């Protein structure tokens, strides 16, 4: 989910939560119907305040459930956002690729797989990155994998940063990741991979890994 969508969901969640809280406060008698500034919605809120018996109970229960759901939704969105907003292992200026002339493509760029008179087939760089990252972390002891993608006449150039389990054999883990990533890209997209450069970090505490991130 992008930042705009997440922000919209959180904003809607807050508005609904506020509405449910107001209804709950009025239905329980904690507050009066003129709670909102400028007498806004006083007529409707008066109906809530006037509700008795089962109607009042239903209003309380429904507004309570809605408020609880909104709290859970907002908490979930914030937790998910904070998890995803951890800095990438690799920044745009930090190239691991040793080949000269490597120029990382933006994740919004498109790679052409084939072009014939019947039409063009292309793939988003973001999709290749997702593929690489998902395939690489299937290697035992590989915890996290980020990559940038470039291209030269021989094929794709991958510049990757990886976090492996502390004490694991870095050379072996890198070799397995390299092999799986190459195989996945070539076998699934038909694009040739010319080079996969990997810089391994050992998995320490999250804070330490973030401090190791090159900005």
């Amino acid at each position, binding site marked *: 989910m992008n930042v705009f969508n997440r922000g*919209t969901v959180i904003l809607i969640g807050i508005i609904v939560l506020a509405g449910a809280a107001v209804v709950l406060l009025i239905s329980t008698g904690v507050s009066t119907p003129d709670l909102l500034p400028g007498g806004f919605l006083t007529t409707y809120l008066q109906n809530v305040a006037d509700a008795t018996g089962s109607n009042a109970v239903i209003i309380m229960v429904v507004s309570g459930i809605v408020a609880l759901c909104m709290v859970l939704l907002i908490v979930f969105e914030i937790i998910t956002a904070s998890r995803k907003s951890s800095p990438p292992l690799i920044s745009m200026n930090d190239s691991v690729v040793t080949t000269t002339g490597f120029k990382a493509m933006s994740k919004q760029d498109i790679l052409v*797989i084939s072009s014939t008179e019947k*039409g063009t*087939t292309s793939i988003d760089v973001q999709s290749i990155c997702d*593929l690489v990252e*998902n395939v690489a972390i299937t290697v035992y002891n590989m915890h996290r994998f980020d990559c940038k993608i470039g291209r030269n006449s021989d094929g794709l150039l991958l510049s990757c940063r990886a976090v492996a389990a502390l004490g694991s054999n870095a050379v072996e883990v890198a070799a397995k990741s390299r092999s799986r990533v190459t195989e996945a890209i070539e076998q699934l997209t038909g694009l040739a991979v010319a080079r996969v450069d990997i810089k391994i970090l050992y998995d320490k505490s999250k804070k330490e890994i973030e401090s190791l991130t090159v900005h």
Partner: protein
Amino acid sequence: MIDGTTVIEDEVVASIAGFAAGKVKGVESLGKSSITSSVIHHIKSAEDNAGTGVKVEVGKREAIINLELNVMYGYYIPDIVDEVRSNVASSLMEITGLMAKEINIRIVGIKFSDTKRKTG
């Protein structure tokens, strides 16, 4: 025989193309994923969703189709797109009589199943 003109709306061509593309094994969905599109996806019926991720340019006898596909992990993309091209072209010809001049396909996502196994 009564004379008359038949006009096929772009939306109809897009729906046909989207529906034909979505039937191919390995195609997970059409169009870029976002919360807005997924909400719309759930609200709309399957037929209405068929035009999502499809842009068309329709001429008198030919059409150019641009498709955005999300594919499932594990399928060979060139095979999927070949089948999509063939399915879309034949559906268009069968239903509308239009010839697909060009079918441009952009892979916008690869969908993974939730279960991932760590192996040596």
